[in-house]
């Protein structure tokens, strides 16, 4: 079985500074990969490279495009890349304000991707939006409200609904729970876990929170100074870390 995503030796330099160096991995359908590391470890740069927001200096990123097999993303036109980004992929921003349109209603936020791919029946778009609001545990009665009136946790759930409405196969998430209160985090994590399992999503989740990684991810990629220092099964890397840096990272987590 060939992977959904195949990354070979990608790097990004900013002058002398290394954003991300020689990263390779494969991701299969339904697999959740967490990229962990501290600030400046290159994990966010990696996410931007994977999602074609920035171009890699070296290497290749191949994706299993429906009906075409593994395709080097650099060989796709900008229009094809955008099509992927709004149909087959999702991107959940750390700050929901960056991922939502704050000046249109919750329903329009969820419906936008549908309209972007050609949905032209108002009633059907609205029904789908209602359904997704419920799936992310938002009150469907608030469909016509602006997200500005929603709490941070609600905004984040709305952003998730907005991304999942086209049933993507791959979702990128940048610290999806970082900006939220702890009590809200737990609810969101649980929801994400359910959705990822139910929909069979593949996901790349950037997080500095090892507990988030343990709960959501099948596999880990530990990054430091732009390089991958360790990779493996989530519980194995966290319970039996091999690399000095991973050992330090795991040992630094406060136990409760």
């Amino acid at each position, binding site marked *: 079985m060939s992977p959904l995503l195949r990354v070979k030796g990608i790097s990004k330099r900013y002058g002398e500074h290394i954003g991300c160096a020689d990263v390779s991995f494969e991701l299969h359908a339904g697999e959740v990969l967490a990229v962990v590391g501290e600030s400046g470890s290159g994990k966010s740069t990696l996410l931007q490279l994977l999602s074609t927001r920035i171009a890699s200096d070296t290497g290749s990123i191949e994706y299993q495009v429906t009906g075409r097999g593994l395709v080097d993303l650099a060989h796709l036109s*900008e*229009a094809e890349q*955008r099509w992927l980004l*709004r149909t087959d992929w999702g991107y959940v921003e750390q700050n929901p304000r960056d991922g939502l*349109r704050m*000046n*249109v*209603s919750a*329903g*329009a936020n969820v*419906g*936008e*991707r549908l*309209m*972007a*791919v050609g949905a*032209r*029946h*108002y*009633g059907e*778009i*609205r029904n789908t939006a209602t359904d997704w609001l419920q799936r992310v545990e938002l009150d469907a009665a608030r*469909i*016509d409200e602006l997200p500005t009136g929603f709490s941070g946790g609600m905004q984040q759930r709305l952003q998730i609904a907005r991304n999942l409405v086209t049933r993507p196969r791959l979702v990128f998430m940048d610290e999806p729970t970082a900006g939220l209160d702890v009590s809200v985090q737990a609810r969101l994590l649980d929801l994400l876990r359910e959705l990822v399992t139910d929909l069979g999503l593949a996901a790349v989740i950037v997080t500095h929170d090892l507990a988030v990684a343990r709960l959501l991810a099948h596999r880990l990629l530990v990054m430091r100074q732009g390089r991958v220092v360790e990779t493996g099964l989530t519980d194995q890397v966290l319970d039996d870390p091999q690399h000095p840096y991973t050992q330090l990272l795991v040992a630094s987590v406060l136990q409760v």
Partner: protein
Amino acid sequence: MSSQRTQTGYNFAYLDEQTKRMIRRALLKAVAIPGYQVPFGSREMPLPYGWGTGGIQVTASILGRDDVLKVIDQGSDDTTNAVNIRRFFERTAGVATTERTEDATIIQTRHRIPEKPLSEDQIMVYQVPLPEPMGRLEPQEVVTRKLHALADYGLMHVKLYEDIARYGHIASTYDYPVLVNGRYLMAPSPIPKFDNPKLHMSPALQLFGAGREKRVYAIPPYTRVESLDFEDHPFSVQRWDDPCALCGATDSFLDEVVLDDAGGRMFVCSDSDYCKTRQAAGHTGSQSPVPATQEEAA
């Protein structure tokens, strides 16, 4: 008549020939890519932005000595803006002007398309305040240009969705977005959506000029122009319960005219030439002027 009032000291139609050439090149490109916004070097004009500086520059660039110019504002030939612009070209170009739609070769307009059908030897020039249809939703031009390049117009439907969610129907009644030739999303300028069907397959060339925003765009003759909508909320135009109070027309765009302080009102054709032509042909409405009475004479 007008040639007597022509001012000396200005180039024909005010603009210098280099500027006209630059604008014509932009217009040729606009015609070649229907609905696409072409940047041009908009000049300072002797009237403020928002009063039709884009339309004037387009008209000045295409005007010839044999042209007959009609200028309308909200459908009327005798409102301030229309009178000023007409006088401007009378003085700087000495061209003939008219109020009769069928006699004009160039019609510069703000906010209306004439009711009388246009012909192949006519050019419409629209004054455009905001050329970017997605501008209110996406303020960054670098983004809207990319959306146009990729024909990525879901955002415009988001706006229409919001209208229906909020008002139960698509509330935009003017500057209603259209798709030109199946490719470019275009703002038709603040014409009422009543006029949108007239854009479609029009025999006349239609040019749009936005002076402050420095953009021109065009719809060549016989081009498909579709108004955006939803399958279950199809595009429709305004309808009035009553015919025009002066000429009895049932097929024209009507303006509300307040008659007194007691709530008296009537609805009349916004296109003054159309209304006059019909009245001259003997059509009447409920408020048609009756022969002068003694009271009025007194």
